[in-house]
């Protein structure tokens, strides 16, 4: 129905994924506000692109793909903004004006230790790890969502698991001690 243009049919179609998409966006962006925007944009894009949805594919994985792409774009632009901000702050300091103490910290959140462990991963490693180990897609699904090869997924997954294990050893020794 929704493919034939009935907008009211969209909500029941995506409602089962509202939580998972937001959680995925949060784990990829590591920022609640960004995650909300990424998820919103992902749903809007999904709705606009429904006509091109390949019915032989998994709808959930298709949504994940849109959300992962959106999160990647968001992180890229956030990185650019941060670089521009830091350059401006350096210029301000050089010119003798003190940077605002709260500048750059407005959107920073107190992150849990878990998220700090995810911070140890590179972008691709985090995407692969989140999709495979936290969202529980298999290797082929993960490769398809990320638009890369299964080999690339395996390489990044192996490296991500190793780094997570090291981060847990370093940052959560109590978890190791509980063994």
């Amino acid at each position, binding site marked *: 129905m929704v493919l034939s*243009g009935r*907008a*009211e049919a*969209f*909500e029941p179609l995506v409602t089962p994924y*509202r*939580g998972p998409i*937001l*959680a995925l966006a*949060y*784990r990829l962006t590591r920022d*609640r506000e960004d*995650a*909300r925007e990424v998820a*919103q*944009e992902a*749903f*809007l*894009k999904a*709705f*606009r*692109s429904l*006509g*091109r949805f390949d019915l032989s594919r998994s709808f959930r994985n298709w949504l994940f793909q*849109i959300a992962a792409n959106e999160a990647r774009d968001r992180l890229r632009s956030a990185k650019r903004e941060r670089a521009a901000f830091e350059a401006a702050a350096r210029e301000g300091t050089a010119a003798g004006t003190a940077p605002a103490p709260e500048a750059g910290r407005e959107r920073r959140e107190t992150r*849990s*230790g*878990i*998220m700090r*462990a995810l911070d140890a991963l590179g972008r691709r490693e985090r995407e692969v790890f989140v999709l*495979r*180990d*936290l969202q529980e897609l298999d*290797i082929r699904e993960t490769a398809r969502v990320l638009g890369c090869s299964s080999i690339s997924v*395996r390489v990044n*997954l*192996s*490296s991500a*698991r*190793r780094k*997570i*294990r090291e981060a*847990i*050893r370093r940052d*959560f020794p109590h*978890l*190791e001690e509980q*063994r």
Partner: protein
Amino acid sequence: MTCRKACKLMPLFAGDDLGPRRTRAVRAHVGACPACRRELEELREALSRFKAAATAESVPDWSEGEWKALMVRAAGGTARGGAEKGAWGGRALLPRWAAASALGALIGLAVLSALLRGPGPGPADRPEPPLALADAGRAQDVVSMTMVSQETGLQIVWFLDRNFDYKGEQE
């Protein structure tokens, strides 16, 4: 299989992400090697604790109002248009497509203009050697080398004969 190789494959083995042949090889090695078995157990334990902690962690959720507003926005988007390009293909891909076409056209024009221009100036078009070297022999027998100082911009032209013997210079 060596311990080194087994350790390399361990993260994928721990999540059952290896192919059957390698899975068998690692399993056989781990069965026979207590150190690698301990390593595997620790890795599995760490990953499982991480997953449990990540699952228990509070992730943001939609309020009903937010969700309804989003759905209304999506429906509004359709009403606006069919005219609105799909964000997926339209907005994201068109600029790339346009840029690639423009680049192709530019390269085509450059190649075409190079072909139409024909060969560059031949030896006959080259400037005559300076008058000061009139006695150095025929023009084609003289080779000049220009040295430019990057610091001062000073240029010195050395003139050599066909045997590369120094014949003079000009600033």
